[in-house]
């Protein structure tokens, strides 16, 4: 089975337009699940789950994968991150939303080869004084994160704030709370925070540092998906020919590995 899939992948790479594309939920179309918004990675316009417009690193990445598999690409937006980790129930072929590979998640979904490695970052709101420079200093603030994410795990297990933290469904709500000062500091993927701050520096306080997690982001499939092997082959080709580096440069820019480490 696996050997067959590899053959298909090689054929698809060699002759993307004419070779038989891998089987997908909707024939000829790679249906990609998103969880918008995430600055730099995926932003756009949605009506219900229908994606009217999407931009970002992960959008371009999924489009590149589809192209190399000889498929058209279609995006669907899921309103909550947790929905992406149950792809057996979805009507899509793969999910891409800065999903980091963890042993726990690997029991629920299959992962592609990773396309980015990143740490968590901490961004404070305008006006927080003194600016927290350590995990201990964060403990006294209202810390917020997206529910079910690595950041939420760090808040609970490492920062252990003395004030009740705020866990919300998506980034829009998170920023709403941050702007309304219901939240003092956000723990989220460092590249997203860096992109947010670069886009609108006046709306945020400083990006104070990172909490090293060395997470690796990968695409998620339902377990046993025949797409995994051809998608991995496409991702490897995208990394090898410099496409991935170009996309990172275009959408993310700054290197968050240079941020100070919060201890």
């Amino acid at each position, binding site marked *: 089975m696996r050997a067959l899939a590899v053959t298909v992948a090689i054929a698809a790479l060699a002759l993307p337009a004419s070779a038989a594309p891998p089987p997908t939920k909707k024939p000829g179309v790679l249906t990609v699940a998103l969880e*918008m*918004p*995430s*600055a730099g990675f*995926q*932003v*756009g*316009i*949605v*009506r219900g789950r*229908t994606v*009217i*417009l999407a*931009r970002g690193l992960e959008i371009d990445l999924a489009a590149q994968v589809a192209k190399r598999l000889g498929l058209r690409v279609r995006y669907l*937006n899921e309103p909550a991150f947790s929905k992406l980790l149950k792809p057996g129930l979805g009507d899509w072929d793969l999910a891409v939303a800065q999903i980091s590979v963890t042993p726990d998640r690997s029991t629920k979904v299959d992962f592609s080869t990773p396309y980015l490695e990143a740490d968590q970052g901490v961004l404070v709101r*305008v*006006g927080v004084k003194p600016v927290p420079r350590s995990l201990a200093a964060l403990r006294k603030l209202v810390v917020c994160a997206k529910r079910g994410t690595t950041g939420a795990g760090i808040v609970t297990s490492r920062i252990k704030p003395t004030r009740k933290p705020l866990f919300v469904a998506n*980034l*829009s709500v998170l*920023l*709403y709370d941050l*702007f309304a000062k219901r939240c003092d500091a956000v723990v989220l993927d460092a590249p997203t925070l860096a992109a*947010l701050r670069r*886009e*609108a520096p*006046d*709306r945020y*306080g400083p990006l104070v540092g990172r909490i090293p997690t060395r997470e690796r982001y990968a695409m998620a499939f339902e377990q046993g998906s025949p797409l995994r092997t051809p998608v991995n082959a496409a991702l490897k080709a995208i990394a090898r020919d410099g496409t991935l580096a170009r996309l990172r440069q275009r959408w993310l820019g700054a290197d968050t590995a240079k941020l100070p480490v919060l201890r």
Partner: protein
Amino acid sequence: MPARLCVAAALCAAVVLPPAAAAPRAATVKVALLQGEQVVYVDRPGSTVAAAVRGLLAGPTATEKTQGIKSQLPAGTPLRGVSVRGGVATIDVGIKFASGSRAESLTARVAQLVLTATRVPNVRSVRLLVKGGTPLGLFPGILASFPLTAKNVTAPPRMPPPAPAPQQPKPPSAATRALQQRLADLGYMRADEVDGRPGPRTTSAVVAFQKWSGLARDGVAGPATRAALSSATRPAPTRPGTGRRVEVLLDRQLALVIDGARVTRTLDVSSGKPGYDTPAGSWKVFRKEVRSWSVPYKVWLPWASYFVGGVAFHEYPEVPPTAASHGCVRVPRWDAQWLYTQTPTGTPVTVIGRSR
């Protein structure tokens, strides 16, 4: 013309915007367009949100364009639908509204739409739809998936402008002192700035001299520049006039600060880039703000003296040798406060396209 326009800095907007302040039997609506670094309101016929948004999408008239009035909304953006309920205007625009990826243009167009709609009586906020869908993260710093009030798009940040990076002063030299003295004698520097130390201040004065003399604008006092300096005279006003006034020479990218027949200072400036041209004409300084906030472009403008609509002299960290601004006249850090004190309200400002 300025009388017809209300410049909406954050303060002005806060005063004018509540619905109660709007005219009760308005035959016209106010449309938020852009001039320089600010929003200006122009009148359009109609009384509804739909009329106001249609007026906005149509953009500036030919006459307004000559005054440097523009819009960041992409031309030809269709209006798909408008409804008002409980003070919230739901405005559905075509996908063109979201075209392009420049953050400053995307945020400015949301600001224009929200400010236009909320000037209509009884509209407090705007729910923005693009092709019937909700924007998610598309407009930097603006949470467009929630209804937006005027305050959401105008409020300046509660933090001061960033401080300039400290410069390590270079050791003084006699040659630099002589160069500076010559530049000061000709009005390109102030006498109290002659310290013999090379640096951005001196480079900028050299650039100003090169601009006036038609030399390459490299800021280096090379042989050609030194030769020209040795025989140069102080710049003279290019237009007749009396009293304290300022001439902005767009072709040379200079501002001449004039007292009577004498040019007291010649300043290295940068005006509006192509498509954002600083409007030529005779204007007067009408508003001064020590620290002004650009509503559409979200940037601090220290030492701002507005002379037409949203077009001002203001301090800016980068003053390249060519036109680079949104229509304002950028002044270097070291001259900005001085110019501010020299240009009280009422000071004539003449913007001249061709000065040779």
